[in-house]
């Protein structure tokens, strides 16, 4: 009897300890965001566009990349994010070397990424000015698998998915958003942009849509393809505000 009462007491202490730590964790992100007044926005998504063939392809299915810096997608992202966040935060302009942020790649060995930590924390500390803002919103390319095979796609791109009887074309703008504490440089929040409510059989874990052949970069210089430019811009514009809202940074839809 005495033994079972000891067990009950021990269990109660464990439950209380777990509950207290859970409450402490609950406060972490929300409390940190509450304290944020001034933010800077960094975007490094739209320097180039990939062009890949997947599904039933020939033996040479390497992806190609085309520069699309002239589209000014990153300036557009900063502008749209500024508009979305201005109600809640004071958005301050920041300067940074965009190429340094786009050069960051995840290691294919998952434990290495866990051990080395988030590389963007250090970049914000060393490459962004001014320092001293409460937080920095960092928007960078995200990577995802496409189809059931081993194909990975990243950032802004165009994919032709080949099947035995037909093929389809998809465009995507995959990006992720981090909120980095301006004092400690810890990542307060991180989220990948969500898919739009499309109903295609082949989906990506981010903003994407089906397009026709006229959007294909193979029909000419992709940077001059206005259809492609407009469609990618639309994907980003429609997804950015909802992603910021999902992160509890903006109350817009």
């Amino acid at each position, binding site marked *: 009897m005495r033994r079972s009462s000891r067990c009950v007491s021990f269990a109660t202490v464990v439950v209380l300890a777990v509950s207290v730590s859970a409450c402490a964790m609950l406060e972490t992100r929300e409390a940190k965001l509450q304290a944020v007044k001034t933010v800077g926005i960094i975007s490094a998504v739209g320097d180039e566009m990939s062009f890949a063939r997947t599904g039933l392809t020939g033996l040479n299915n390497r992806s190609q990349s085309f520069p699309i810096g002239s589209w000014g997608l990153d300036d557009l992202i900063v502008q749209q994010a500024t508009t979305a966040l201005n109600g809640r935060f004071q958005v301050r302009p920041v300067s940074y070397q965009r190429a340094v942020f786009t050069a960051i790649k995840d290691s*294919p060995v998952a434990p290495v990424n866990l051990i080395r930590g988030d590389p963007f924390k250090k970049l914000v500390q060393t490459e962004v000015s001014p320092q001293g803002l409460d937080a920095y919103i960092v928007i960078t390319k995200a990577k995802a698998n496409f189809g059931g095979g081993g194909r990975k796609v990243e950032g802004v791109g165009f994919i032709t998915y080949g099947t*035995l009887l037909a093929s389809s074309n998809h465009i995507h703008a995959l990006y992720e958003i981090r909120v980095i504490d301006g004092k400690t440089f810890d990542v307060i929040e991180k989220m990948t942009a969500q898919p739009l409510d499309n109903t295609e059989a082949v989906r990506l874990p981010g903003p994407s849509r089906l397009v026709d052949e006229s959007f294909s970069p193979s029909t000419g210089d992709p940077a001059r393809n206005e259809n492609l430019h407009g469609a990618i811009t639309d994907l980003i514009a429609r997804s950015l505000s909802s992603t910021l809202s999902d992160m509890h940074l903006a109350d817009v839809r």
Partner: protein
Amino acid sequence: MNHPVQACFRSSRTVVARQTFLAPLLTALAAISAVSDSASAQTAFTLPAPPFELPIGPSLSGNWTVMVGVGGEYKPDFVGANRSMLSPVPIFSIRRAGSAEQFRGPRDGASIALIDCGDFRAGPVGKFVASRKANSYSELNGLGDVGAAVELGGFVEYYPVDWFRTRGELRQGIGGHHGVVADFSADVIIPVIQRFTVSAGPRFTWESTKATSPYFGIDAVQAAAAGLPVFNAKGGAHSVGAGVQVSYRVNPQWEVHSYVEYERLLGDAAASPLVALRGSANQTTVGIGASYSFDVKIR
């Protein structure tokens, strides 16, 4: 090609047990289908933010795709048996909305790709091998039970092109056997249309003596009890075969799939009196299943 979580609850006792298992699953499927009957994978439920957050890792907020389903697998009663039975197979997975379902074969162990270069993946793998009870099947009378085993090890996967997968698994048994098992497979994956995919390819399994003898070896005591000759089963090439899978996505929610896996036992597994006199070296597994996917949004 959906077999994300296939925990096979094999009940060799009664068919009633299977029916009682299938009924709630089918009811749950029907209920979910009724609640979310829209024609797309749009958000079916919105859940509040979780009461706590993990100190590391990305936020849980956002859209998640939940897949539930049920299938049936008609497979030999035990490895080497010449009779088969139907077992229910539940299907369940949760993934970020839009995440691609990686191709998976019915024989694959449960695995996590810790190294993922896209066309090359590697990481730990595990497989559960159900116990073999002698009193469940008359062919096994006198041979004694073989306990359940867990096989742990590693896998490598390589896609030379998007439509061709090669995979190897090397696993060490714990529990029912203490041997080493190596599985090799290759699959040509052909999307006929976006919604319909066919895959097929050869399979080969090698097993060490310690993995073979508990199932196919017969010692003097067992021989006397079972009326079979003594047999010292050694390791080596265990089986060779082939498999075919088809999957059809009816709409963004519903998907059906089916597969046939054939293997021919080789070496001492085939030569064992248990197989040669009371069973069959030809082993065929047929599976069929249906799954329903819906999106859940976490605030």
